[in-house]
């Protein structure tokens, strides 16, 4: 099944932002913002212990500065992961927040991605960095990575929902939602088969398809968010291989 296989052919955002095609640039930036705005916002809230409004301004300001200063063009995949690079850029930006605030006023609305800050704030309820403690660089990296994986998976789930809708497989997505996106430990294929009045084998096949597509979509998005093949393989191992590693 060649269609299911690698290599991913979509451009990396790092290459795409250098494109001369403005539409391609915008698409790349939107992809990047969609994946990173929530991790950045939550990171600013917790790592820098900033109140909600400040964190919102800083998040928008950071992405504006990223555009103004062409930070992505300065990223070198050989030196670090894109995720780490962006986190360090956020640190440096927040440390310089007064200047950042001015920039935010000039270009804070440059992204086309709707930033749902109240939702992000709600998600922070269970966050685990203790602002009173001195977090280690590892715990900060871990926190940022966890939020980034959450953001990546949420986008992939949304893409999967759209795909299922396009292919008239809404029931498959509902099964996926009920089983894989549920916190219910008691859920079983048998229970789903009974609820949906379908054989267990159909539930198995539907979930198998949905998971394969979810994995493919998540990896495609991940490929876009990496600066090199090597980084992609490392990140793919961290995101999916970490079940194994």
């Amino acid at each position, binding site marked *: 099944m060649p269609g299911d296989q690698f290599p991913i052919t979509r451009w990396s955002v790092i290459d795409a932002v250098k494109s001369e095609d403005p539409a391609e640039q915008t698409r790349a930036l939107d992809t990047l913002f969609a994946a990173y705005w929530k991790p950045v916002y939550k990171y600013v809230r917790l790592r820098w212990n900033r109140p909600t409004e400040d964190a919102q301004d800083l998040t928008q300001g950071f992405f504006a500065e990223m555009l103004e200063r062409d930070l992505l063009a300065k990223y070198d995949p050989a030196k670090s992961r894109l995720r780490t690079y962006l986190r360090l850029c956020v640190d440096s930006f927040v440390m310089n927040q007064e200047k950042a605030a001015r920039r935010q006023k000039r270009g804070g609305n440059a992204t086309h991605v709707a930033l749902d800050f109240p939702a992000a704030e709600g998600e922070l309820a269970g966050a685990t960095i203790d602002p009173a403690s001195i977090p280690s660089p590892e715990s900060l*990296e871990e926190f940022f990575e966890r939020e980034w994986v959450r953001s990546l998976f949420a986008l992939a789930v949304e893409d999967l929902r759209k795909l299922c809708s396009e292919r008239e497989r809404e029931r498959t997505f509902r099964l996926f939602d009920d089983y894989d996106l549920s916190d219910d430990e008691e859920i079983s294929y048998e229970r789903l088969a009974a609820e949906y009045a379908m054989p267990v084998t159909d539930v198995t096949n539907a979930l198998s398809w949905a998971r394969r597509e979810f994995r493919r979509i998540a990896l495609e998005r991940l490929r876009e968010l990496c600066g090199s093949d090597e980084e992609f393989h490392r990140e793919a*191992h961290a995101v999916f291989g970490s079940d194994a590693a």
Partner: protein
Amino acid sequence: MKFLSDKTVDRLRQNANLPDLSGTRYQLLERVACGGMGTVYAARDQTLDRRVALKVLDVLIADGDLARRLNREARALALLEHPGIVPVHDVGTLSDGRVFYTMKFVEGQRLDKYIETVTSLPDRLRLFLRICDAVAFAHARGVLHRDLKPANVMVGAFGEVLVMDWGLAKILREQSSGASDDDPEAAILHAQQASNGPADSTQATQVTGQGTVLGTPGYMSPEQARGDIAQVDKRSDIFSLGAVLRFLCVNPLTHSGQSKAWRQDKTLEAICAKATEIHPINRYATVSDLSADVSRYLDGLPVSARKETIFDKSARFYRRHTIAILLIVAYLAMRILLLIFSHR
């Protein structure tokens, strides 16, 4: 957009990793274990109606050459018929591009867990000798392991020792660097160079993570770690065996303080040191030489790894013949006492 809790993210990660075995002869049963290179599942071989271990590797292949090479490697590995070796039955590719292979399903414990129940040093060393037997057999057939470590050794329900994951570390290394068929070993060098490149805090973790794929830090020989492919040969496996031996000797026991005494055993330490010499030329030339030394140690005989002083020789002689020496000393003491009393 739906918020995904930590639990959901973990569940998604696990479920998305479940292999889609449609189109293969295998039926997924359950997840058994996970490690640095991939995840092991129990599966049913529907053709032969038997339970097998199916390992899905965290690498993706897309090119036919590599798939062909994997099959060729699998055929070579299938020739390793030895009671201490778990050969690969089958190698294939999932529809999402991940590589999987199947092998005999071994019911037992990994060596690093199993030895917690083995409290006697001689028993641990005898276990080690059986690992050496399997590795020596493979070396005699021109197969290197390249990723020997306690986690790759299983001890079965009847005490049988089985060495797993033969040759696959090599395939993985080649895959991760995209080495060509003509120059399979170059992959090690490329992969190592890649892993040594960047230098941020995440990278350090990543290097460790990648190191698991490329070989296991602590058990990987220096020439493998350096990517000095010209020097990677059976003495690289001997280095790993030396590290395994050291692990068996110093891994603390839960009930006794014996491990400290073992660390202080200069002969055993000399054997480990010789096996794990930085320069391959200074290591044991063959696995048989290493196991011969361990056997001689067990029998209380001198070993090639250590030049003994007269004191060492005497101590070893005493340890080997303790009862006889004590009997002779007791006999002589009695004779002297009798002599003294008879003169009075």
